[in-house]
């Protein structure tokens, strides 16, 4: 909401200086986004009437202009001018000799081509009024009230310095989308009075209506959509430019000045928050209007020239012959638009249902200054006052007679709310007295009656008021419950005057097991050299398909901003691949990235009756090793498993989408699948523009970080251990992990550790086989093992591995 302070001051008696207003507005909830100073004092610039224009000998671009600058036709001022857009009789701004124009441009007497110029006729931009340099700023023509030659320009035109505040108005305060609303809030805070603007042009009595035309008729067939409707006819209107001051205010408030009728309509809306619509009465057959719901499929061409198809939830204004002429509260129709030839105007001021306007505006994606106000709720009692303001303002420029006025519908009774002063203090933490609370509400236009002894079920003790009966002003649709009044009291009292206290938490502040374990996981992964990235949740369908994931199982955003961001990631892989590719393209290869984030999947079964059922959402870990292979990934995974203290970790050779078909294993922890380790499929690597191998680890956090019972100490044996090395020739299909499992299982308690120390392929090992060398460490908790015991165990291990895996012991 752009508020020219000159306008605001007109509505606010004895307003404090600008700086105080700017300081106080945010404390009322009206944040000041910007303070813009416009215009200049323009001392020395006066209104002048062009008396004569004559060529200058030897010059073809400039002319000698004689103007009346207040001295009358007998005492003209001669100025040289290079513009050609004006004629004799025009009223123009003259910067007299000695004037300093914006930009420190000093006007002096000058001689050009043998003539003397005593000043300068000004273009708008030379006066600091916009960028228009097309020609001299023509203010009017002939004799215009207020624009008498010689009158100081600023006084005559109202185009003096002004300050425009851009206020951020909260959604619950439609009343503050108007000058009067802002003035009311300031008046309440500063204890000032709101000044009601002068109203002229009383309505002509029916009997006196010249021409004898009947008053217009108004019918409301949709009372749920339209509670009140005022139609006023103004005749003898001459459409033309607005007075300069009015056009300027409309423009400073952020709208375009168009013509007196349209500008006045906007001016009234800006000042009173009451949108209104002016029709060319001549284009309304039957001099009547009807408000009804649209019929599905009905059409209307709106003022913006768009042919719109309507639904039965849209509210229409129709003419007396039932043809649509406007989309209620949103935009008028093109057929009855005010034009240059309009002489009779019907102005509509209505109170429309906020939800109805919001629905239509949203459905048609058509937002206007009117709909923005209606959809938040307008004042049902302001129609008459706004209509009078309309005729007064138009009367000042358009010479109109107010011929008829019809009002249909009653304003609803004002909302009444019961307010308990004790509740106000209990919620705010204040100790305000009743008079202070009542005073705040009263200043804001709420009328407080009562006390209501015994209201709220509690009997009033002597001298204690338990509740007041508060009537909400018609312009405050946001206030309908006690809590709304609590907010009003707090707002006017001032948030900064409420004493600050700190409640003592009765809860133990701590992280959950999962949260602590997740922090640990991050540290462990970072400890392997990987840096954490946060990649976007959104993927394109191509991203999903590229990593071999099923697009059918992926959730889709139904209204994405761009099609490339329509899928919710089912895996962290595409995001991290994209990050790695970005880095590679910036010559940052061979790096490790990880992410912990949510992934989303459509569960196999559609949502059932449970209202709260949501799709599968998981927290996952992804680690990407650019330039490193599956072995490196496995080592990183081992470091993670070790760092988390995981027990019963297994890798099972298997294939997963997007991963290298022969360099991939599923991770099991305690027998449950937790994730995958291996390498990204070379085809995927190539498709994202990377080269070399890309190692990959992924795991779901719910299983990875599952809470486990505390580790119980396994006493460290104080007796010596014995190591033996065993090398087996094993066919390639048998995973090394399977052989190691057999060794561990068969060794039982005596085997305290095993590790793979050598893998060898080539002669003399048979083709399709490799040699796996394991070290097995024997140790007993209670004694030194004898050579015999170790030898027996060794034989048992060899037998078991050879029989289980078809392996042979290498000599």
């Amino acid at each position, binding site marked *: 909401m752009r508020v020219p302070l000159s306008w605001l001051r007109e509505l606010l008696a004895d307003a404090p200086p600008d700086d105080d207003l700017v300081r106080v507005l945010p*404390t009322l*909830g009206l*944040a000041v986004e910007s303070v813009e100073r416009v215009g200049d004092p323009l001392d020395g610039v006066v209104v002048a009437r062009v008396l004569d224009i004559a060529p200058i000998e030897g010059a073809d671009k400039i002319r000698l202009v004689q103007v009346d600058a207040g001295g009358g036709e007998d005492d003209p001022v001669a100025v040289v001018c290079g513009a050609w857009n004006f004629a004799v009789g025009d009223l123009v701004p003259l910067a007299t000799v000695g004037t300093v124009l914006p930009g420190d441009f000093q006007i002096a007497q000058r001689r050009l081509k043998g003539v003397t110029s005593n000043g300068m006729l000004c273009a708008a931009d030379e006066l600091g009024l916009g960028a228009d340099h097309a020609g001299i700023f023509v203010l009017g023509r002939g004799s215009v009230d207020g624009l008498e030659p010689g009158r100081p320009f600023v006084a005559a035109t109202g185009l003096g310095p002004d300050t425009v505040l851009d206020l951020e108005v*909260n*959604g619950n305060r439609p009343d503050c989308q108007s000058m009067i609303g802002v003035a009311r809030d300031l008046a309440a805070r500063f204890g000032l009075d709101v000044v009601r603007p002068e109203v002229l042009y009383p309505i002509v009595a029916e009997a006196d209506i010249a021409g004898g035309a009947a008053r217009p008729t108004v019918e409301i067939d949709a009372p749920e959509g339209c509670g009140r409707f005022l139609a006023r006819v103004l005749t003898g209107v001459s459409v033309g430019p607005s007075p300069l001051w009015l056009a300027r205010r409309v423009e400073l408030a952020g709208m375009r000045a168009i013509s007196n009728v349209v500008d006045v309509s906007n001016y009234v809306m800006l000042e009173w928050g009451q949108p209104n619509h002016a029709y060319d009465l001549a284009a309304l057959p039957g001099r009547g209007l009807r408000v009804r719901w649209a019929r599905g499929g009905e059409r209307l061409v709106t003022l913006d020239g768009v042919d719109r198809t309507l639904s039965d939830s849209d509210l229409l204004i129709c003419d007396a012959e039932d043809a649509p002429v406007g989309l209620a509260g949103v935009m008028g129709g093109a057929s009855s638009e005010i034009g240059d030839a309009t002489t009779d105007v019907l102005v509509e001021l209505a109170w429309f249902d906020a939800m109805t306007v*919001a629905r239509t505006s949203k459905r048609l994606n058509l937002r206007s200054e009117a709909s923005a106000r209606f*959809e938040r709720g307008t004042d049902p009692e302001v129609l008459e006052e706004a209509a009078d303001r309309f005729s007064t303002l138009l009367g000042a420029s358009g010479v109109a007679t107010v011929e008829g006025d019809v009002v249909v519908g009653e304003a609803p009774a004002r909302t009444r709310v019961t307010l308990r002063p004790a509740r106000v203090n*209990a*919620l*705010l933490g204040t100790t305000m007295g009743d008079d202070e609370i009542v005073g705040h509400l009263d200043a804001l236009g709420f009328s407080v009656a009562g006390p209501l002894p015994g209201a709220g079920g509690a009997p009033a003790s002597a001298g204690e008021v338990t509740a007041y009966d508060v009537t909400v002003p018609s312009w405050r649709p946001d206030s309908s419950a006690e809590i*709304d009044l609590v*907010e009003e009291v*707090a*707002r006017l009292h001032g*948030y900064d005057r*409420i004493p*600050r206290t*700190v*409640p*003592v*938490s*009765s*809860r*133990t*502040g*701590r*992280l959950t097991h999962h*949260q602590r374990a997740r922090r640990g996981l991050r540290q462990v*992964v*970072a*400890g392997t050299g990987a*840096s*954490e*990235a946060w990649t*976007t*949740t959104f993927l394109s369908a191509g991203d999903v398909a590229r990593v071999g994931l099923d697009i059918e199982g992926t*959730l*889709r*955003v*139904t*209204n*994405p901003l761009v099609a490339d961001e329509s899928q*919710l990631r089912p895996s962290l892989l595409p995001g*991290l691949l994209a*990050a790695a590719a*970005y*880095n590679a393209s910036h010559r*940052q290869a061979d*790096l*490790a*990235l990880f992410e912990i*984030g*949510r992934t989303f999947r459509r569960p196999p079964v559609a*949502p059932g009756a449970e*209202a*709260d*059922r*949501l*799709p599968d*959402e998981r927290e996952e870990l992804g680690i990407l090793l650019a330039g490193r292979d599956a072995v490196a990934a496995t080592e990183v995974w081992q470091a993670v498993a070790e760092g988390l203290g995981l027990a019963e970790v297994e890798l099972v050779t298997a294939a997963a989408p997007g991963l290298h078909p022969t360099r991939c294993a599923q991770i099991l922890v305690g027998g449950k699948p937790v994730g995958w380790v291996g390498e990204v499929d070379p085809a995927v690597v190539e498709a994202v523009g990377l080269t070399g191998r890309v190692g990959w680890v992924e795991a779901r956090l719910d299983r990875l970080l599952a809470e486990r019972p505390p580790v119980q100490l396994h006493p460290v044996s104080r007796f010596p251990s014995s190591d033996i090395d065993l090398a087996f020739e094993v066919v390639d299909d048998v995973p090394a992990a399977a052989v190691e499992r057999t060794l561990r299982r068969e060794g039982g308690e005596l085997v305290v550790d095993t590790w793979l120390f050598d893998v060898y392929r080539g002669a003399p090992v048979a083709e399709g086989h490799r040699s796996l060398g394991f070290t097995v460490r024997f140790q007993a908790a209670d004694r030194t093992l004898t050579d015999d015991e170790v030898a027996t165990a060794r034989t048992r291990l060899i037998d078991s591995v050879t029989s289980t895996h078809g392996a042979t012991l290498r000599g």
Partner: protein
Amino acid sequence: MTALSELAELSDLAAEVVAAVSAASTVEELRALDAAALGKKGPLAQRKAQLGGLAPDDRRVVGQALNAAKEAIEAAVQSRRRTLEAGARAALLEAERLDLTEVGRARRRGHLHLVTQTRDELEDVFVGMGFQVAEGPEVETDWHNFEALNIPPAHPARSAFDTLYVDWGEPESTVLRTHTSPVQIRVMTTQEPPIYSVMPGRVYRQDTPDASHLPNFHQIEGLVVDRGITFGDLAGTIDLFTEAYFGRGIRSRLRPSYFPFTEPSAEFDITCPFCGGEGCRTCGRTGWIELGGCGMVHPNVFRAVGYDPEVWSGYAFGFGIDRLAMNRHGIDDIRELIVGDIRFLEQF
């Protein structure tokens, strides 16, 4: 052999051995000289064995001279050994010399993302104030994200959220949460008061990416529900947090605002940490930086989760994690946070 000549010989012998010892160039040579001079068959030992043949007085004098010669040789050996050992050690160390600046770039250290670091730090401050940390789903029901938060269907405030919808269930019944507030609802529908919780996480808006907007970003939100909680408590909590996180001298202020799920509602600003309130480029010369929104939990929200607003009162507050991190570290463009550029990630 006279005692006198004996003494002279001893003196010569000792001087000779000491000279040889001092000239020894290796530990091995020294050891041989030592053994030769002081060994069981060495000259001193032989002379000692012959002491019995001397007159008692001579025996004493020669005995003393023998001891003195022995001590002189021992001292010389010891001194020479120290010198030789020190030299050998110095030579060895010299041979081991390394130029550590020849060492190439070490393996990269992993870094936690700035958003994670900021989030952890915020969580820690609140945990210290007695808050728990709660989390919830990013794909949410319309009820949790809007309705229970006093934003019924067709409420005009909905348009301000630029909601992204997910193709799940009835049309527009499932959303990508537009704020962390639905976690408030999840906490309240699963726990009894008192509640002291903060809720960090990723949220979504239909925003065109630019320097200050992303369609996914991060918020943290706080919720307190207890008996007798006041607006003054809210203002005090924000003040306490502000000082704990940003440091001494950083204050907060509340300005009236509007959110459907709180009333009274406020936006809160903090003293600009860059200029300490003097006014600078970062704060637009106001001395304040806008941080987030807050307010007293609206009675309708309590009703939606089955709490009696006459018994319980509470407050909620929330702000952007990314924005906070950006402010603190001089990051002008939020998109930097999400690209995954290692040159960015490794700076924090």
